[in-house]
Protein backbone atom coordinates (compact mmCIF):
# COMPACT_ATOMS: atom_id res chain seq x y z
CA UNK A 1 0.00 0.00 0.00
CA UNK A 2 1.58 3.24 -1.16
CA UNK A 3 0.99 5.68 1.66
CA UNK A 4 2.07 9.22 2.20
CA UNK A 5 3.15 9.94 5.75
CA UNK A 6 4.13 13.32 7.15
CA UNK A 7 4.99 13.60 10.84
CA UNK A 8 3.19 10.37 11.59
CA UNK A 9 -0.01 11.35 9.82
CA UNK A 10 -1.05 9.24 6.83
CA UNK A 11 -2.65 10.67 3.72
CA UNK A 12 -3.96 8.79 0.73
CA UNK A 13 -3.76 11.86 -1.50
CA UNK A 14 -0.38 13.28 -2.47
CA UNK A 15 -1.91 16.52 -3.65
CA UNK A 16 -1.95 19.45 -1.23
CA UNK A 17 -4.01 22.38 -2.34
CA UNK A 18 -4.42 26.03 -1.43
CA UNK A 19 -7.42 28.19 -0.61
CA UNK A 20 -6.33 31.48 -2.14
CA UNK A 21 -7.37 33.37 -5.27
CA UNK A 22 -10.63 31.54 -5.95
CA UNK A 23 -13.51 33.42 -7.51
CA UNK A 24 -15.72 32.36 -4.63
CA UNK A 25 -15.62 30.15 -1.58
CA UNK A 26 -18.13 27.84 -3.23
CA UNK A 27 -15.90 27.30 -6.27
CA UNK A 28 -13.03 26.66 -3.91
CA UNK A 29 -15.06 24.06 -2.07
CA UNK A 30 -15.95 22.28 -5.31
CA UNK A 31 -12.35 22.40 -6.53
CA UNK A 32 -11.11 20.90 -3.28
CA UNK A 33 -13.68 18.15 -3.64
CA UNK A 34 -12.58 17.43 -7.22
CA UNK A 35 -8.90 17.42 -6.24
CA UNK A 36 -9.14 14.63 -3.71
CA UNK A 37 -6.77 16.57 -1.48
CA UNK A 38 -6.82 15.94 2.26
CA UNK A 39 -4.61 18.81 3.35
CA UNK A 40 -5.28 22.45 2.48
CA UNK A 41 -3.24 25.56 3.14
CA UNK A 42 -4.59 28.76 4.65
CA UNK A 43 -3.03 32.13 5.37
CA UNK A 44 -3.17 34.12 8.61
CA UNK A 45 -4.44 37.69 8.45
CA UNK A 46 -6.08 40.29 10.63
CA UNK A 47 -9.82 39.96 10.94
CA UNK A 48 -11.63 42.70 9.05
CA UNK A 49 -13.32 44.27 12.08
CA UNK A 50 -15.23 46.86 10.09
CA UNK A 51 -16.70 44.51 7.49
CA UNK A 52 -18.20 41.53 9.26
CA UNK A 53 -20.35 40.54 6.29
CA UNK A 54 -17.62 38.48 4.63
CA UNK A 55 -18.22 34.74 4.67
CA UNK A 56 -15.84 32.79 6.78
CA UNK A 57 -13.42 30.67 4.79
CA UNK A 58 -13.67 27.88 7.33
CA UNK A 59 -17.40 27.47 6.63
CA UNK A 60 -16.33 26.05 3.26
CA UNK A 61 -13.69 23.63 4.51
CA UNK A 62 -15.16 20.50 6.06
CA UNK A 63 -12.92 19.57 9.03
CA UNK A 64 -13.90 15.93 8.62
CA UNK A 65 -12.35 15.86 5.14
CA UNK A 66 -9.50 18.33 5.27
CA UNK A 67 -6.67 19.00 7.66
CA UNK A 68 -5.44 22.58 7.74
CA UNK A 69 -1.91 23.71 6.99
CA UNK A 70 -1.62 27.39 7.98
CA UNK A 71 1.17 29.30 6.28
CA UNK A 72 3.32 32.32 7.09
CA UNK A 73 2.85 33.91 3.68
CA UNK A 74 3.89 37.53 3.53
CA UNK A 75 6.51 37.24 6.26
CA UNK A 76 9.90 38.66 5.33
CA UNK A 77 11.66 38.01 8.61
CA UNK A 78 12.10 35.01 10.88
CA UNK A 79 10.56 37.09 13.68
CA UNK A 80 7.37 37.78 11.73
CA UNK A 81 7.12 34.19 10.58
CA UNK A 82 7.54 32.89 14.13
CA UNK A 83 4.95 35.35 15.43
CA UNK A 84 2.50 34.38 12.68
CA UNK A 85 3.07 30.67 13.26
CA UNK A 86 2.37 31.04 16.97
CA UNK A 87 -0.84 32.93 16.22
CA UNK A 88 -1.84 30.30 13.67
CA UNK A 89 -1.41 27.55 16.23
CA UNK A 90 -3.34 29.51 18.78
CA UNK A 91 -6.48 29.42 16.62
CA UNK A 92 -6.45 25.84 17.80
CA UNK A 93 -7.07 24.02 14.55
CA UNK A 94 -3.59 22.86 13.61
CA UNK A 95 -0.07 22.50 14.96
CA UNK A 96 1.30 22.29 11.48
CA UNK A 97 2.87 25.23 9.71
CA UNK A 98 3.92 25.83 6.14
CA UNK A 99 6.82 28.07 6.97
CA UNK A 100 7.59 30.87 4.54
CA UNK A 101 10.23 33.50 5.11
CA UNK A 102 10.34 35.50 1.92
CA UNK A 103 13.53 37.13 0.69
CA UNK A 104 12.36 39.02 -2.39
CA UNK A 105 9.10 40.71 -3.34
CA UNK A 106 9.12 40.00 -7.05
CA UNK A 107 10.22 36.41 -7.09
CA UNK A 108 8.91 35.50 -3.60
CA UNK A 109 11.99 33.34 -3.28
CA UNK A 110 12.76 32.31 0.28
CA UNK A 111 15.25 33.94 2.60
CA UNK A 112 16.87 30.69 3.57
CA UNK A 113 18.86 32.11 6.47
CA UNK A 114 15.69 33.43 8.07
CA UNK A 115 13.89 30.23 7.16
CA UNK A 116 16.46 28.06 8.92
CA UNK A 117 16.37 30.25 12.01
CA UNK A 118 12.58 30.16 12.18
CA UNK A 119 12.55 26.41 11.57
CA UNK A 120 14.85 25.80 14.52
CA UNK A 121 12.75 27.94 16.84
CA UNK A 122 9.41 26.49 15.80
CA UNK A 123 10.60 22.88 15.86
CA UNK A 124 11.73 23.45 19.45
CA UNK A 125 8.25 24.76 20.26
CA UNK A 126 6.67 21.57 18.98
CA UNK A 127 5.37 22.72 15.61
CA UNK A 128 5.24 20.36 12.65
CA UNK A 129 7.26 22.52 10.27
CA UNK A 130 6.97 22.22 6.49
CA UNK A 131 9.33 24.87 5.10
CA UNK A 132 8.86 26.36 1.64
CA UNK A 133 12.33 26.65 0.18
CA UNK A 134 14.13 26.65 -3.15
CA UNK A 135 15.60 23.78 -5.09
CA UNK A 136 18.89 23.91 -3.20
CA UNK A 137 19.90 20.48 -1.86
CA UNK A 138 22.20 22.00 0.76
CA UNK A 139 19.43 24.12 2.26
CA UNK A 140 17.04 21.18 2.19
CA UNK A 141 19.50 19.09 4.14
CA UNK A 142 19.98 21.87 6.68
CA UNK A 143 16.22 22.23 7.09
CA UNK A 144 15.89 18.51 7.64
CA UNK A 145 18.70 18.59 10.20
CA UNK A 146 16.91 21.46 11.92
CA UNK A 147 13.90 19.19 12.40
CA UNK A 148 11.60 20.02 9.51
CA UNK A 149 8.94 17.34 9.05
CA UNK A 150 9.25 17.61 5.27
CA UNK A 151 11.05 19.87 2.83
CA UNK A 152 9.17 21.80 0.19
CA UNK A 153 11.39 22.96 -2.65
CA UNK A 154 9.76 25.23 -5.20
CA UNK A 155 9.33 24.08 -8.77
CA UNK A 156 9.30 27.69 -9.99
CA UNK A 157 8.24 31.06 -8.50
CA UNK A 158 4.90 31.11 -6.70
CA UNK A 159 2.05 31.59 -9.12
CA UNK A 160 4.33 31.56 -12.17
CA UNK A 161 2.99 28.38 -13.73
CA UNK A 162 6.45 27.67 -15.16
CA UNK A 163 6.53 24.08 -13.99
CA UNK A 164 9.52 22.27 -12.56
CA UNK A 165 12.47 24.44 -13.56
CA UNK A 166 15.31 22.37 -12.16
CA UNK A 167 14.54 18.68 -12.44
CA UNK A 168 18.06 17.64 -11.62
CA UNK A 169 18.16 19.58 -8.36
CA UNK A 170 14.84 18.11 -7.26
CA UNK A 171 16.22 14.66 -8.06
CA UNK A 172 19.31 15.37 -5.97
CA UNK A 173 17.21 16.66 -3.08
CA UNK A 174 15.20 13.44 -3.20
CA UNK A 175 18.27 11.29 -3.18
CA UNK A 176 19.54 12.71 0.09
CA UNK A 177 16.28 13.45 1.87
CA UNK A 178 15.23 11.48 4.91
CA UNK A 179 11.91 13.32 5.17
CA UNK A 180 9.16 13.71 2.57
CA UNK A 181 9.90 16.03 -0.33
CA UNK A 182 6.94 18.04 -1.53
CA UNK A 183 7.28 20.24 -4.58
CA UNK A 184 5.58 23.49 -3.65
CA UNK A 185 5.00 26.41 -6.04
CA UNK A 186 5.26 26.96 -9.74
CA UNK A 187 3.02 24.19 -11.04
CA UNK A 188 1.05 25.45 -14.04
CA UNK A 189 -0.81 22.52 -15.46
CA UNK A 190 -1.35 18.81 -14.99
CA UNK A 191 1.82 17.63 -16.72
CA UNK A 192 3.92 19.71 -14.31
CA UNK A 193 2.45 17.83 -11.39
CA UNK A 194 2.91 14.49 -13.15
CA UNK A 195 6.53 15.32 -13.96
CA UNK A 196 7.22 16.13 -10.32
CA UNK A 197 5.66 12.87 -9.18
CA UNK A 198 7.55 10.88 -11.82
CA UNK A 199 10.78 12.12 -10.30
CA UNK A 200 9.75 10.39 -7.12
CA UNK A 201 8.70 13.35 -4.97
CA UNK A 202 6.33 12.52 -2.19
CA UNK A 203 3.74 15.18 -2.91
CA UNK A 204 2.88 18.35 -4.76
CA UNK A 205 1.44 21.53 -3.32
CA UNK A 206 -0.33 24.03 -5.54
CA UNK A 207 -2.74 26.91 -5.39
CA UNK A 208 -2.68 29.24 -8.40
CA UNK A 209 -2.60 26.41 -10.96
CA UNK A 210 -6.06 25.38 -9.82
CA UNK A 211 -7.61 28.61 -8.50
CA UNK A 212 -6.43 30.61 -11.51
CA UNK A 213 -7.49 28.12 -14.18
CA UNK A 214 -10.42 29.06 -16.36
CA UNK A 215 -12.30 26.12 -14.87
CA UNK A 216 -10.81 25.51 -11.41
CA UNK A 217 -12.99 22.49 -10.68
CA UNK A 218 -11.98 20.76 -13.92
CA UNK A 219 -8.32 21.62 -13.34
CA UNK A 220 -8.51 20.27 -9.81
CA UNK A 221 -9.76 17.00 -11.26
CA UNK A 222 -6.94 16.99 -13.79
CA UNK A 223 -4.39 17.58 -11.04
CA UNK A 224 -5.80 14.72 -9.02
CA UNK A 225 -5.32 12.38 -11.97
CA UNK A 226 -1.88 13.80 -12.80
CA UNK A 227 -0.56 13.22 -9.29
CA UNK A 228 -1.91 9.67 -9.27
CA UNK A 229 -0.57 8.96 -12.77
CA UNK A 230 2.84 10.41 -12.01
CA UNK A 231 3.15 8.41 -8.82
CA UNK A 232 2.07 5.20 -10.50
CA UNK A 233 4.51 5.75 -13.36
CA UNK A 234 7.29 6.34 -10.85
CA UNK A 235 6.48 3.14 -8.97
CA UNK A 236 6.15 1.19 -12.23
CA UNK A 237 9.78 1.90 -13.13
CA UNK A 238 10.14 3.69 -16.44
CA UNK A 239 12.33 2.66 -19.35
CA UNK A 240 15.62 4.50 -19.69
CA UNK A 241 15.86 7.16 -22.37
CA UNK A 242 17.95 6.20 -25.36
CA UNK A 243 19.46 8.26 -28.10
CA UNK A 244 18.34 5.96 -30.92
CA UNK A 245 15.56 3.55 -31.65
CA UNK A 246 15.12 0.05 -30.31
CA UNK A 247 12.52 -1.79 -32.36
CA UNK A 248 9.48 -3.15 -30.63
CA UNK A 249 9.47 -6.39 -32.65
CA UNK A 250 12.30 -8.73 -33.64
CA UNK A 251 13.06 -8.74 -37.38
CA UNK A 252 12.84 -12.61 -37.43
CA UNK A 253 9.94 -13.93 -39.41
CA UNK A 254 9.33 -10.75 -41.38
CA UNK A 255 7.71 -11.46 -44.75
CA UNK A 256 10.04 -9.81 -47.21
CA UNK A 257 11.32 -10.05 -50.82
CA UNK A 258 14.97 -10.40 -49.60
Amino acid at each position, binding site marked *: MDTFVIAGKTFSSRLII*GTGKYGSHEIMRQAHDASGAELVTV*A*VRRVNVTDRSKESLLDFIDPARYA*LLPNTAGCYTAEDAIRTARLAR*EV*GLSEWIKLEVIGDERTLFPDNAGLLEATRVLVKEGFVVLPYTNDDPVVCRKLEDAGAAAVMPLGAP*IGSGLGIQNLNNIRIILEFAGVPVIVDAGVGTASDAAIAMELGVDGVLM*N*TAVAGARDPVAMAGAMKLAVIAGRQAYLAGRIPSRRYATASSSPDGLVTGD
Partner: protein
Amino acid sequence: MRITLNGEPHELAEPLTIARLLATLEIDPRRVAVEHNLVIVKRAAYHTTTVHPGDQVEIVNFVGGG
Protein backbone atom coordinates in the same frame (compact mmCIF):
# COMPACT_ATOMS: atom_id res chain seq x y z
CA MET B 1 -10.91 55.25 25.55
CA ARG B 2 -8.64 54.51 22.65
CA ILE B 3 -6.80 51.32 21.80
CA THR B 4 -5.02 50.12 18.68
CA LEU B 5 -6.97 47.29 17.12
CA ASN B 6 -5.44 45.48 14.16
CA GLY B 7 -3.19 48.44 13.52
CA GLU B 8 -5.94 51.06 13.57
CA PRO B 9 -7.19 53.37 16.33
CA HIS B 10 -10.35 52.01 17.92
CA GLU B 11 -12.67 53.66 20.41
CA LEU B 12 -14.09 51.80 23.38
CA ALA B 13 -16.44 53.18 26.01
CA GLU B 14 -14.51 51.59 28.87
CA PRO B 15 -12.03 48.80 29.62
CA LEU B 16 -13.40 45.38 28.77
CA THR B 17 -12.24 41.78 28.52
CA ILE B 18 -11.07 40.19 25.29
CA ALA B 19 -14.19 38.02 25.45
CA ARG B 20 -16.46 41.08 25.58
CA LEU B 21 -14.49 42.78 22.81
CA LEU B 22 -14.90 39.78 20.50
CA ALA B 23 -18.59 39.60 21.32
CA THR B 24 -19.19 43.27 20.53
CA LEU B 25 -17.32 42.82 17.23
CA GLU B 26 -19.40 39.70 16.51
CA ILE B 27 -16.26 37.59 16.15
CA ASP B 28 -16.39 33.87 16.88
CA PRO B 29 -13.63 33.24 19.45
CA ARG B 30 -13.07 29.70 18.19
CA ARG B 31 -11.90 30.92 14.80
CA VAL B 32 -9.38 33.53 15.82
CA ALA B 33 -6.18 34.07 17.71
CA VAL B 34 -5.60 37.16 19.80
CA GLU B 35 -2.49 39.09 20.74
CA HIS B 36 -2.63 41.66 23.56
CA ASN B 37 0.34 43.99 23.75
CA LEU B 38 2.39 41.55 21.67
CA VAL B 39 1.57 38.61 23.91
CA ILE B 40 -0.66 35.81 22.64
CA VAL B 41 -3.73 35.40 24.80
CA LYS B 42 -4.88 31.84 25.46
CA ARG B 43 -8.55 31.33 24.73
CA ALA B 44 -9.17 30.24 28.32
CA ALA B 45 -7.94 33.68 29.40
CA TYR B 46 -10.25 35.72 27.13
CA HIS B 47 -12.66 36.25 30.02
CA THR B 48 -9.95 37.37 32.42
CA THR B 49 -7.75 39.53 30.20
CA THR B 50 -8.79 43.19 30.24
CA VAL B 51 -8.03 45.75 27.54
CA HIS B 52 -6.99 49.17 28.84
CA PRO B 53 -6.43 52.57 27.17
CA GLY B 54 -3.39 52.56 24.88
CA ASP B 55 -3.35 48.77 24.56
CA GLN B 56 -2.51 47.08 21.29
CA VAL B 57 -4.75 44.21 20.23
CA GLU B 58 -4.38 41.97 17.19
CA ILE B 59 -7.14 39.60 16.15
CA VAL B 60 -6.26 37.24 13.31
CA ASN B 61 -8.06 34.49 11.46
CA PHE B 62 -7.50 32.12 8.57
CA VAL B 63 -8.01 33.44 5.05
CA GLY B 64 -7.35 32.02 1.61
CA GLY B 65 -3.73 31.28 0.82
CA GLY B 66 -1.36 28.88 -0.92
